[in-house]
């Protein structure tokens, strides 16, 4: 069951690519971390928010034919690990591109999309609580597309 607060809490990162940076070692994190795992206590109070560009490069990818629950209507979909220009890597889908257009090294940029919807009854694999909660977040398109 995914309640609204669980989705709402992560909105700054999922909607706007807000990360943070350890000012001790300069490592950039996405999603933001409470402490820097490298500097640990030395980083307390020294983690600064940083706005990431959402631009990056495909590290690796797959085409998913056996979907995660809630993603059935999109199947087959391209799932990729993207290295953002600021350093952190993320996992999400690449949309608006043909299955053969993606390569390791392709430049991509972020778009805001609907990720999932909690439907009722459980027949769609949703939580069955009928909450209708929609999760939005980042996906990617090939650079040069909108």
């Amino acid at each position, binding site marked *: 069951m995914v309640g609204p607060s669980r989705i709402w809490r992560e909105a700054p990162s999922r909607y706007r690519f807000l990360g943070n940076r350890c000012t001790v070692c300069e490592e950039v994190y996405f999603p933001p971390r409470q402490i820097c795992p490298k500097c640990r206590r030395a980083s307390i109070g020294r983690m600064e928010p940083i706005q990431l560009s959402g631009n990056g490069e495909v590290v*690796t990818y*797959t085409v*998913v034919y056996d979907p995660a629950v809630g993603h059935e209507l999109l199947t087959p*979909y391209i799932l990729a*690990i993207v290295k953002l220009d600021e350093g952190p890597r993320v996992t999400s889908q690449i949309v608006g591109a043909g299955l053969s257009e993606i390569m390791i090294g392709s430049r991509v940029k972020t778009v805001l999309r609907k990720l999932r919807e909690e439907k009722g009854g459980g027949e769609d*694999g949703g939580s069955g609580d009928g909450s209708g909660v929609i999760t939005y*977040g980042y996906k990617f398109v090939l650079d040069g597309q909108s």
Partner: protein
Amino acid sequence: MRKVCISGVGITKFGELWSRSYRELIVEAGLRALEDAELPGESIECLYMASMGPGMWVSQEHAGPMIAEQTGLTSIPVVRVESGCASGALALHQAFIDVASGKHDIVVVGGVEKMTDVGAKEAGSIINTMLDYEWESIFGATLPALYAMMARKHMHDYGTTREQMAEVAVKNHYNGSLNPIAHFGRKISVDQVLSSPLLADPLRMLDCAPMSDGSAALVLTSKGDVEIIACEMASSTLALHSREDITTMDCVVGSSKKAYKRAGINPSDVDIAELHDYCTIGEIIESEDLGFFEKGKGGKKVAEGVTSLNGSLPINTSGGLKSRGHPIGATGVAQVAEIYDQLIGRAGERQIELLDYGLCCGVGGSGGSAVVSIFRRR
């Protein structure tokens, strides 16, 4: 530390066991292990049980006391252990510490999962709880999809081929065809792997482990036929994307380095190994990260037959997760049961001759945790 040995093992049939319940399976494996060790039930001083998610698979958390009650062991400690697909391997780690410390002399390690009481969709959701829920699952990742991304990168960086990965499944099914408890007893061909349905390109259905029911158990004592000379654990980032190198399981590198050091041996001393082939690429990556083969050469070695039953380093003689089956909590324990049978020379048609050292590698999820154990015949 005191010596820790295995003095008996027990395992149930693995597969889609519609008539068997969660509790029946682990009781059966435990009884067999005790018979094998020739010990009475009242001699057991502590029970470690691995189960990845009984609350989700059979709506039963608090499973420790249930198992203790079923076996008349309510007066001793019962500890449930979980680390995703590495749960069984981690239960061994905890029991090893227990006996090594001298706290208990006779300890049972059991592992169990009952995965076929839920529908396919629900099963997929449960498997997905081993991923990073907030930053992988929600975005459409599945465990096979993460392994597919490792496979794609390994092919890109090292020239590993689709056929080499298929050879892992072919080898493991061959081995499984000789294992009476295996989930799948049939041999398969490279062509069959390559024409099976795509799950996540480039991985296909016959690259991936099935959902199985089953249980395995071990009896650990301070003296026995097989000594556990090292049992080490390390973890890594939960999300695959946060790892420095997508094709390296840091936790396997880390736990195996510690294990070799403690055992006082090198990777080349290992004679036989059970690895975590949740997907075919997993066995290839682990065979490199354990130091058996140079990085990038794992696929080539499988295709050359080095890891086959008659090769110089047989891997997954049991059939591995792919063919023996993968009842998650039982898997790490079943790996040890196979190495035990091999080291004492009762692995039947799968028997490998002249063995000194065996190794087990259990991996959680996409490589968020790993336990590496090394065994020696006494």
